[in-house]
């Protein structure tokens, strides 16, 4: 694999994100597989340091590598821990011999700038790490030439275009899509690009050894999107017509996507007053007959536990997307975690049937989402899709999505004709919780002529839905709703089984789910190619737990590392509880709980220490 990794580091709100995003889109247009993530984003809007990562490769990539080849430093915080708080600045990840493009402007009258970078600050780096540094007063140029400080991002792109041999038209093509053909902003950005390129040419700067990996592609063969956008689009295409949610990082993009797109499909979005309300709105809409969902993160998910219990008891289809961030409590709102696994598998009061799926990247999330809705309708229970901050808020390049692969199955929801046939005019009384051979009762949309009483009850209930506390009925209902249901779910062939990667008999094994997928893939490739064969079992269904597949994988490995963003080793605990028992010698953990993204080097480093 050939890949180049670039970091843009500045201050929140100074255009660094746009700079990296425009570069990434341009490289994707040119044929690179691009992955863009939030290297460093504080839970604030402006004034803190921020950094965005971009990796471009000649093959699909699903994560970041350990080192940057190029660092764009727009602010002194890219190089130094300015507040002395122990922060590791992005320069620490710039590889020896890497490239530093930095802004030498004096501190200008710009509200969000912190400090300029002077060439003498860079001299040590150039000497010690062999870094090739290119400094120019980008902010000053932008201010003097265009009266807009923010245009320094485009000046930087002009410099990079020259250094990396990216034609100016490639940027212009992308900028014209962003700002609109003939707009003033397009003209200004085009002039800023040229200014940067001209400056680099005049200085005679060159980087002949660094060329980007482009793979020619057919028009529209690939797309670049956030995990959250994939979830939103897939939900609508899968028939979701009701969305209720409360803003929360890192799930808010789903709320915004649905707010923008759902109305055109006759759908409704309620921005609820809390996650408690949102989850109960979803139950109401689902009982009424709509495909309904919500999305949230840890704190909001805790508030939903009561409703989830209600959906389980009332056998109401309920779809909840949980994007995990660093916890507990408010924790690290903008950074990655996988600390909701226990809550999603074991949370809420009482015994209920439930299904927990996980996605690893946006394409996976897109196709899994349709299944999530089908399973909810088929088994009339809460179904969860686990995401995490990296998957939700990173841009991935994926093969073009194909909506025709989506299948819609509403299970035993009767349409008006079926209701008329079964209940019309024959005096037969509809029973919401009718005991059937397969334990699943039919659903009827309230308002359908022929059925006047669809009684949905969170109390223990009879077949008709009325309260009962009779022991015999209680037992039958629990068996129908929980025991028989979970057996059926376990046997469902549509549940995504774990995917196995690497040599079949590798002595070293990794288990993980979610966005650690990419880093683990690269880690096993590197380990295997250096003579330490390693395999990877990626879990996609977490409940019901894939006991046999995990047992088989663990059995054939000498040592298994469970990789997760959780200090409490929640995934390893689940594996031990459901599949393997303690196995303290064989089963190890690779944990990351500092809020930073997982990398192949982090994974391999832990292996080496234990070898």
């Amino acid at each position: 694999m050939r890949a180049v990794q670039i970091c843009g580091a500045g201050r929140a709100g100074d255009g660094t994100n746009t700079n990296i995003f425009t570069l990434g889109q341009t490289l994707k247009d040119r044929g690179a597989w691009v992955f863009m993530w939030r290297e460093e984003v504080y839970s604030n809007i402006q004034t803190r340091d921020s950094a965005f990562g971009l990796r471009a490769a000649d093959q699909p990539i699903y994560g970041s590598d350990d080192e940057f080849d190029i660092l764009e430093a727009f602010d002194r915080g890219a190089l130094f821990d300015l507040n002395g708080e122990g922060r590791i600045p992005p320069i620490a990840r710039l590889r020896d011999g890497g490239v530093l493009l930095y802004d030498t402007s004096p501190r200008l009258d710009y509200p969000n700038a912190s400090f300029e970078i002077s060439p003498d600050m860079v001299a040590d780096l150039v000497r010690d790490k062999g870094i090739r540094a290119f400094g120019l007063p980008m902010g000053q140029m932008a201010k003097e030439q265009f009266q807009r400080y923010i245009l320094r991002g485009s000046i930087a792109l002009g410099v990079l275009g020259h250094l990396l041999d990216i034609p100016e038209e490639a940027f212009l093509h992308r900028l014209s899509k962003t700002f609109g053909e003939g707009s003033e902003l397009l003209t200004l950005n085009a002039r800023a690009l040229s200014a940067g390129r001209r400056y680099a040419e005049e200085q005679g700067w060159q980087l002949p050894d660094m060329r980007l990996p482009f793979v020619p592609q057919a028009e529209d063969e690939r797309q670049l999107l956030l995990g959250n956008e994939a979830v939103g689009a897939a939900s609508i295409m899968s028939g979701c017509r009701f969305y209720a949610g409360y803003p929360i990082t890192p799930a808010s993009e789903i709320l915004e996507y649905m707010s923008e797109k759902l109305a055109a499909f006759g759908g409704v979005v309620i921005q609820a007053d809390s996650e408690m309300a949102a989850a109960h709105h979803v139950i109401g809409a689902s009982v009424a007959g709509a495909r309904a969902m919500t999305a949230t993160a840890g704190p909001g998910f805790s508030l939903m536990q009561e409703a989830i219990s209600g959906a389980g008891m009332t056998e109401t289809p309920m779809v909840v997307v949980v994007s995990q961030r660093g916890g507990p409590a408010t924790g690290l709102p903008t950074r990655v975690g996988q600390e909701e696994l226990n809550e999603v598998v074991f949370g809420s009061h009482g015994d209920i049937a439930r299904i927990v799926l996980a996605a690893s990247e946006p394409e996976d999330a897109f196709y899994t989402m349709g299944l999530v809705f089908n399973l909810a309708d088929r088994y009339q229970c809460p179904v969860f899709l686990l995401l995490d901050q990296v998957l939700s808020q990173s841009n991935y390049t994926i093969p073009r999505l194909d909506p025709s692969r989506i299948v819609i199955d509403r299970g035993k929801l009767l349409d008006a004709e079926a209701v008329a046939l079964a209940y019309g005019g024959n005096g037969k009384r509809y029973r919401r919780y009718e005991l059937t051979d397969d334990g699943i009762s039919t659903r009827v949309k309230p308002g359908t002529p022929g059925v006047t009483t669809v009684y949905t009850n969170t109390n223990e209930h009879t077949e008709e839905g009325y309260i009962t506390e009779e022991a015999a009925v209680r037992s039958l209902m629990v068996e129908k709703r929980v025991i028989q249901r979970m057996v059926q779910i376990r046997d469902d062939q549509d549940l995504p089984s774990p995917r196995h990667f690497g040599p079949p008999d590798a002595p070293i094994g990794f288990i993980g789910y979610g966005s650690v997928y990419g880093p683990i893939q690269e880690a096993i490739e590197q380990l295997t190619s250096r003579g330490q064969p390693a395999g990877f079992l990626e879990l996609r269904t977490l409940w019901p737990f894939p006991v046999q597949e995990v047992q088989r994988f663990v059995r054939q490995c000498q040592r298994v590392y469970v990789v997760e963003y959780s200090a409490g080793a929640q995934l390893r605990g689940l594996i031990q509880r459901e599949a393997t028992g303690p196995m303290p010698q064989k089963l190890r953990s690779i944990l990351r709980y500092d809020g930073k993204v997982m990398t192949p080097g982090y994974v391999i480093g832990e292996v080496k220490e234990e070898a």
Partner: protein
Amino acid sequence: MAVDTGTPTITQAEITGPGAWWCSGCGDFGVTAAFKTAMLTLVNDLEIPKESVFIASGIGCSSKEPEMLRLNSYHGQHGRSIPVAMGVAMANPSLVVVDFGGDGDSYAIGMEHFVHACVRNVNMTLIVMNNQVYGLTKGQASPTAHVGLRTGSTPEGRKGRPVNPLRLAIAAGAAFVARGVSWNKKDLTKLMNQAISTRGFSLLDVFSPCVTYHREPGFRGSGPIVDWFRQNYVLDIQDAWRDMRDQVLTDDERVQLPAEYDPTSPDAAMSGLRLIEAASGMGREVTGLLLVDESQPTLDENLGVSAERPPALADISLASNREGNQALLADLR
């Protein structure tokens, strides 16, 4: 009963459920009797099919209401009937959504939802059986327990001011605000019909005495506790209006005011709030119809929910949505 020959008429027996959950003499029986009568009007006179009625309830004695009926229902969790009802109403606005709550349900644990439902003007009716106590947990003080009321959780008598739901509902912008009493079925039925037919959020708070746990010295039992309410607690809105007209205003001002309180007047919200304050100064609570204001858009209107093809009835097949789905795909970069 045929289902395809227009709207059939119904009888009380048809909508009566098997429930037997309340103490003898409970005010909730009066509420149920009034509601069934209101249902007959709705179905037989206004020709709303009975399958289009949706009942929501939470937890508490009052929330056993669906057990007393045979209608579409969601018997939910404590305090959460309102957001469930909102989900139903937004997914299918052609349903007539009536939520039965209690004073603990709606004004304590469900207060968040109650206030926002008023603000958003959800097209639904909330009927609260207000009895000042948590009956189902055997008699603790509820948010509406009057000052001094002795209960299991207030052995020295309730201290601090109670929640006033009418004041909250008016201030939060509900479309319909009224208080009925369970012992006056005729007026209560009328208020129910008005509440249900009002477009927007309707709050009908009903004094529905708990004969077991609402203990007033000297007024034990179902008859006496009603006497206590009549003698010591309730004040008809028209009487309150007349009192205010007589006592508070000068002769000059009085001639400009109508003789009767008008809940549809543009001044009703402000007048209602003043009367609630005046009554509470006398240790009283007003009853009657305080406010009807259909001038504000409802939540479904603000959200643009289609009446013909709402979310619950959407055609979600891939074939019918091919163009839309392709447009979504094209919008992804």
